[in-house]
Each structure stands twice: as C-alpha cells, then as structure tokens.
C-alpha cells in the first residue's frame, strides 16, 4: 500500500472512531431534553443507571483491559462506596457519631464529604485485597478476588447495626452546593460530568509512563521486571485507582436508588460488570461504556417480552465469546483503531 493510501486509510478510521465517540457523547448530553420531548422522562433514570454502571465498568477495564488483571470481585468496591454514603447519611439522620475513637467522626449528607470518603474507603479496601491477591495471578487471582468480595458481602449481611440483609434506606440524596441532586435531570448531568471526567483522566493515565508500565505488565510481567520496574507496586496502585473509581460509582448508585444493600456487592454483580466490559470491548475505556449501555438496554427490552430473559442472554454471552472477540466497540470502530 502506498504511503498516501495508508494515510487516507488511517484518517478514515480515525474519523469513524471520532464520529462514533462524538455522536454518542452528544447523544448523552442531549438525552434529558430529548427524553422530555419524547414524553419518556423514565429514560433519564435508565440512562443515569447506564452512566453509573459505565463508570464502574470503565474502572474495571483499567485493571482488566490494560493491566491484564482479571478481577471477579469488582462489585466489592462498588458496594463499599455505596455503603460509605449510606452509613454516613444514616448517622447524619440519627445525629449520632459514626465512631468516637480514636477520633470523633460524625455522619454527613454532603456529597463533598461522602463521595471522596467513598472513594478513599474503596481505595483502601482495594489496597488490602490487591496486596493479597496480586501475590498470585491467572486462575488464582480470579478466584481470590471473587472470594474476598464474597467475604465483604457476608460481612455486610451479618452487620445488623446497618440493616444486615435488608440494607439501609437513605432519607434523601446527598447535598451538593449549587446543584439539586434530588432533581433527576441535574443528577443525570452530575453523573455524566463524573463519567466524562473519569474517561478523560483514565485516557491520560493509560498513555502516561505509568500506563505504559501497566500495559507492559499485561504483555509480559517478567520482561517489565527485568527492565527494573517494581511491577507489584505499579499493579497495586492501578488496582487501588480502579477501586476508587468503582467506589465513586457505588456512591452514585446509592444516591440514585436512595438505598444500599449487600446485594450491591454480590458476586453476580461483579460478573455483570465484567460482562459489560467484555461485551463492549476490553482495553478501550469507551468500550465498557458502550457495553454498559448495551447490557442495560438489552435487559430492559428483553424483560418486556419475557421475565426469563436470562435464558436467552446466557447463550448470547457464549456466542459473543466464541465469535465476537473484540466486543461491540471493535465492531463499531473497525479493526485498525481499536485501542484507546
């Protein structure tokens, strides 16, 4: 192929990708007015759910698609973020202290306190789980992340002080200065800004030196070690960053449904987040967003026709694995410019 043809080809592919991204970005930005025009305000809350799960799935993609760490326990961070918001709000409503020793911590219903707290707690938890599970790899890693997430699930089930099995209801959504989170449309835009923010930052991160090391570990960890990189530390930090982002998604979901329960961190939820990543295309950051949208919309549509939608969805997943290796994003964008 001549040089100019090559260039033209690259431009065409770039255009196709830019077109897809700009189109879907524009659609997401215009969704609330479109929904009210169409007389379907319900769409706003459905798409808020999509944005939140997209954030969770994109954070999993950071460790799975770029770092090659197949975690089947991502819902643990999602759930702990939700519980951080729920527990803080619970104590704020009770006007009781969350803890009195070694420092006094009161509850809070401010998003500026609760959301960073959710991210911090999730990052810490990811630090603990990651430091243990990153000692292994492959199948062990999958099973261990799964087991630790289930441990947290059972912990919250037996935590009677915060509702146990039944979970906690929030009295109201968090407060954010200048924004009314109780309004569905404003809450939608907050989620959208956070998702775009995460995608931007994560996009920069994977192109940075840090991101190169992480991607190198996916190809060959031994080689990265021989080059002198302390891969364990790099991977652990990446794991914690992804955990923090999933914690933020959890904080958002707690606000959206105004309810938290152990079900948020059940292992099937980890499985669903993983399905979203792979359905959309792993290692692309935008793919998981597409995957989340596809999964939730498909669930919505299929459950109109049958309550047993999973009996069709299960085999569909197997077909995706066997025949559509690069996910929906790969199909949309074409072969050349799949990554990024």
């Amino acid at each position: 192929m001549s040089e100019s043809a090559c260039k033209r080809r690259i431009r065409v592919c770039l255009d196709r990708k830019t077109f897809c991204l700009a189109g879907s970005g524009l659609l997401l930005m215009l969704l609330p007015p479109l929904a009210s025009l169409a007389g379907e305000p319900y769409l706003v809350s459905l798409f808020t759910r999509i944005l939140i799960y997209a954030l969770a799935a994109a954070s999993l993609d950071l460790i799975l698609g770029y770092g090659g760490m197949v975690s089947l326990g991502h819902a643990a961070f999602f759930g702990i973020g939700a519980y951080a918001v729920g527990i803080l709000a619970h104590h704020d409503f009770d006007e009781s202290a969350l803890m009195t020793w070694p420092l006094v911590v009161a509850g809070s219903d401010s998003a500026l306190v609760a959301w960073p707290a959710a991210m911090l707690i999730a990052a810490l938890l990811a630090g603990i789980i990651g430091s243990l599970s990153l000692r292994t790899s492959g199948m062990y890693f999958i099973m261990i992340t799964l087991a630790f997430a289930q441990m947290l699930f059972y912990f919250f089930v037996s935590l009677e002080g915060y509702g146990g099995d039944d979970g906690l209801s929030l009295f109201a959504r968090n407060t954010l200065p200048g924004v009314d989170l109780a309004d569905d449309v404003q809450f939608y835009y907050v989620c959208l800004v956070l998702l775009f923010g995460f995608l931007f930052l994560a996009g920069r991160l994977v192109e940075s030196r840090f991101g190169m090391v992480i991607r190198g570990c996916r190809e060959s960890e031994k080689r990265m070690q021989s080059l002198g990189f302390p891969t364990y530390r790099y991977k652990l930090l990446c794991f914690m960053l992804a955990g923090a982002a999933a914690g933020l998604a959890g904080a958002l979901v707690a606000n959206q449904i105004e309810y938290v329960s152990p079900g948020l961190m059940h292992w099937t939820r980890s499985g669903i987040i993983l399905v979203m990543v792979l359905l959309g295309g792993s290692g692309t950051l935008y793919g998981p967003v597409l995957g989340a949208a596809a999964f939730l919309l498909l669930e919505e549509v299929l459950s109109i026709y049958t309550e047993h939608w999973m009996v069709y969805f299960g085999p569909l997943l197997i077909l995706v694995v066997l025949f559509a290796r690069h996910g929906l994003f790969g199909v949309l964008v074409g072969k050349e410019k799949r990554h990024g």
Partner: protein
Amino acid sequence: MLLVIEQLLNGLQLGVTLFLMSAGLTLVFGIMQVINLAHGSFYMIGAYVAATVTARTGSFLLGLAAALPAAALVGMLVEVLVLRRLYKKEHVDQVLATFGLIMFFNELTRIIWGRQPLFMDVPSWLSGTVEFIPGIPYPSYRIAMIGVGLLVALFLYLMFSRTRIGMQIRAGASNREMAGALGINIRLLYTLVFGLGTLLAGLAGVMAGPILAVEAGMGESILILTFVVIVIGGIGSVRGAFIGALLVGMVDTLGRAFLPDLFRMFLPTAHADGVAASVASMSIYILMALILICRPKGLFPAHV
C-alpha cells in the same frame, strides 16, 4: 465436650460435601486449564432431578440413580458444546462464557420447576439417629453423607494411583501434547474427566437436597466455598482439595458454633453476638488469606 464432638461431625459433613464439589472442579482447572464458574449448576441439576424423581417414585435411591447420570450427561454435553471451544482462549473469555452458562441454567430451572424451592425428605431408612459415640445421638443421614464422601475420596485415590485411566489423566495433566503423541485420546479423556467432575457435583447436590432447600441459584453459594477450598488446596491437586475441604468445613462450622461464646467472654453480650457473627462469616476467607501469605500456590501445588 459433647457439643464439640457434635460440631466436629457437622464440620466433617460440610467438609465432605465441599470435597465432592472441589475434587471435580480442581481437576477441570488443573488439567484443562479452564476456569469453570458453572460447576455449581451441576450441583443444582443433581438436586433438582433427585428431588423430582424422589417425589414421583417415593424412593430416594431411584432419585439418586437418576440424578447422577443426569448431572454427568449434562456435564459432558456442555463440555462438547461449549467448554471444548474455550480451552485455548483466555481466562476472561472462559469466565464470561461460563457466567453465561450459569445464567442459562438458573433461569432454565426457574422455567421448568418454578420459583418456589422444592423440599426433599430424608429417606425413612436414614431418618433416625445413631449413637456411635456414647451420649451423642447423631442423625444417620449426616453419618451416611460423611461415609459416602470418604468412600469417594478413597475411590478417587485408588483410581488415580492404581488404574490405567488414572495414569492417563495424570499424564494428560502434566503434558497434554506428549500424552496425545503417546496415543491417549485427549479429547475423550477431557470429556470423561469433566463428566466425572459434574457427576460428583451432582452427588453433592443430591446429598445436600434433604438438608437445604432445592432452589435456583443454590449452586452459587457452594461454588464460592469450593473456590476457597481449591485456592487453599492448590489448583489441580485432589489431595489438596481433600485437606482444604476439611479445613474449610471445620473452620466454618466451629467458627459459627463457638465464636459467640468466645466473644462473650470479653465483650457485652449484645455486642458480642454481632461481632461474632461477622467474624464467623469471614473466618474461612481469613484462613484463605493467611494461607496465601505463606503459600501463594496453595498447600499442595500441583506441577501444572
């Protein structure tokens, strides 16, 4: 003291159930290098078939006789149709596809048997208690479960160490290509091993049927415990699965039974029960973490 012995027996009973599940799964993981999340589905299939046939015919043995081949046949069918195509794929793909299998089987059982759990009775000839340690009447059914589990362990040990097929399985595990070159039909062998694994899972399901409710999704709670067992024992090691299963069974049962008393010694009662319940539910995972810190590849790492 009597209570301790009784709880030890309960732990042993949970342990052998876990062993039946993990023996097959650890072979699938170790030999075929494929991560199979759907193993719990065969446990569920075993329990459902046994519950249905037992209810129709009134005979537990007929239920058992129907459930074991059903689990094995469905397992081999799944291996031929789906799993076989996943051997060369990445672990992520295997997770995704077998997750799809779980969704399919759970929903299918809901379609066939409805959402209401089924209940199975303990067969009348096993419904009594025996007092084989003086002073401790223990349900005969649970004794029978322990007996069956130990017999299966013995059978597997003899099969692997003394028979031709056991030797072939070990050969296939250590080097697939070489074993194939020496004339072993690897494809058939894998299908048989998978069928054996699902048969054992079905057996565990049948035995658990009269103790637990038979419902869709019942396989998943035991699947996670099975994973913990395999991680502790080491992937691919049946001996590791045996030791790991007994450890997990004991720690879980004894933790739930005795931690509340232990915590009451130094905490106010109301508080102690809550803390004890939390710690007891996490105990096996803490055990797993501790073992991982010392031996990241499990207690008995297989050579694969």
